[in-house]
């Protein structure tokens, strides 16, 4: 495991760049634990200061230090992305592995449901969810709602791998040696699909953060939890761009773009690592 990681870091430029970018982002997020100001407090520093020492990224019109605000925001945003990814991974693993292994009618039913979840336009439903929840709409509820939708595409992917695993000899051996379906899926098939799960996790985090930012920017989430989207929302509320407080918008946008590119590079390099054809092409270079 460590050897693979070390080799990836050494030979795969995309992977190294992705790790470096995400490292920076996580460091900024971790810095929030040392923040001199509580996250929710406003007017703790002079408002509208341009980036300079000691407020290196400037201050907002609400009297908050952009850097510390950003640290809280990226921490919450990353946590949000990870929770959605982990929850939805669980669903997609169960559905994908069971459908691939069971095949036949079970497979067909599960895949019809999966296809429906892929197609259903999520945004109006999430907006409706916000509409009925209003003040009670919290970070955790949104994560649950998005995990309930974010599993479908990857379940299809996992199922296609599980389908081919089913016909492999070791599956037959496991059946004959009396392993239960659950045992076969967890002990025999799961290790084979884990690399794919890892790469889809990155894409899923990207997807969920993207939707969270979008919903927040429109004001459709809890406005009290600082996230990247919420920062942009408040900046827009104070017409930061027109007022010339560009740093209030530019830095959150830059940081979220860095996060996206980092996660995306990790996913791409993992895909390349998984696909033997591109690994051969790399060795030939």
């Amino acid at each position, binding site marked *: 495991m460590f050897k693979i990681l070390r080799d990836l870091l050494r030979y795969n430029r995309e992977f190294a760049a992705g790790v470096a970018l995400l490292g920076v982002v996580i460091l900024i997020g971790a810095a929030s634990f040392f923040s001199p100001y509580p996250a929710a407090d406003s007017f703790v520093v002079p408002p509208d200061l341009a980036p300079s020492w000691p407020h290196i990224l400037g201050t907002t019109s609400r009297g908050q230090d952009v850097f510390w605000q950003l640290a809280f925001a990226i921490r919450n945003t990353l946590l949000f992305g990870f929770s959605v990814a982990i929850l939805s991974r669980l669903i997609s693993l169960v559905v994908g592995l069971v459908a691939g292994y069971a095949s036949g009618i079970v497979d067909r039913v599960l895949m*019809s*449901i999966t*296809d*429906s*979840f*892929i*197609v*259903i*336009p*999520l*945004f*109006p*439903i999430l*907006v*409706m*969810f*916000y*509409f*009925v*929840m*209003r003040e*009670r709409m919290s970070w955790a509820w949104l994560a649950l709602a998005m995990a309930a939708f974010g599993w479908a*595409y990857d379940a299809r992917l996992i199922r296609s791998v599980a389908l081919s695993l089913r016909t492999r000899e070791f599956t037959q051996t496991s059946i004959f040696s009396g392993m239960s379906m659950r045992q076969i899926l967890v002990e025999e098939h799961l290790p084979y699909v884990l690399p794919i799960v890892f790469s889809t996790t990155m894409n899923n985090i*990207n997807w969920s*953060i*993207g*939707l969270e*930012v*979008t919903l927040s*920017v*429109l004001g*459709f989430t809890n406005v009290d939890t600082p996230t990247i989207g919420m920062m942009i929302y408040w900046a827009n509320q104070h017409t930061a*761009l027109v007022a010339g407080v560009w740093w209030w918008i530019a830095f959150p*946008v830059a940081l*979220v*773009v860095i996060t*996206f*590119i980092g*996660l*995306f590079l990790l996913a*791409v390099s993992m895909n390349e690592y998984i696909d033997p*054809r591109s690994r051969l092409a790399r060795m030939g270079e």
Partner: protein
Amino acid sequence: MRAYSLYLFRRLTQFVLVVFIGMNIAYAVTHSTPIDPVEQTISAATSFGSTSPDVIAKMRQSLRELYGLQGSPWQQYAAFWKRVAAGDFGPSLSAFPTPVSELIARAIPWTAGLLTVSTLLSWALGNLLGGLAGYYRQSSLLRVAGVVAMGLHPIPYYIVAFALLIVFGFVWPVLPITGGAEMNLAPGFGIAFVESVVVHSILPVASLVLVGLGGWFMGMRSLVSNIVSEDYVIYAELAGVDRRRILISYVMRNALVPQVTGLAMSLGAIFNGAIITEQVFGYPGIGSLLVGAVHAGDYSLLLGITAVSIVAVSAAVLLIDLLYPLLDPRVKIG
């Protein structure tokens, strides 16, 4: 022929299932909340001044009917489906007494037009560039195009749209950044109106295409670079078939099949993106209507939009599925 009708039957069943699941989610979301939507609407309406209890009682009654909170759960469920089947979501609360269906019908052409143009454009462009990049691997120009497309791909719609808005709205204001057409023009097929619509759609379409391009590009490139090493392609090359012909009818033709499936699968996501684009550029389509409905607390309009968008997206997927046999004749033969 039997295989084809079986295929049609399966697709139609899938369509019904998508609509059924989607509507049930919509129903569950609206009916399983800890908050009473009726009391909430009433408290929002009465917070601006004192209203007599008599009027409030009347309001409560009509809202309960509208939200479908009368009778047993089964009756509520049946009433919900009756409304959906009839396409009747009652009058809009924010634009009273205009029916919800009329508001939606007015907004749909804008969204449908925007989506059709930008989806087809990014799909065609992404596949063309991706196919070329997969086939001519040495071209440095195509490599640069690949880096740009892939770099834009992971950035969310909102940020790209917002960047375009800043560049063309404040830095270099040459394009209209808001609205669907000039205010003072009468809708119709006159040259001035059409031209205005086209000019207004440049930025929204550009933002959707920029973000959508990368996915198709990467998919097509990896598909093509796998197909290039297939025996029949190598055979064609050895036999001296024109390279352009190999690319178009040997390689791209085969790679297109999974890409069409991909298009059908991603329609829901494309629709999500279009809603945000509309909001950013003030485009008078479904997305703007949706956001407006939330801000105005218009429940019936919100439910109507959700229902219509579920049906519309799954109908579009069905359409792609029905055209699929044209591209992949194996479906017809079975």
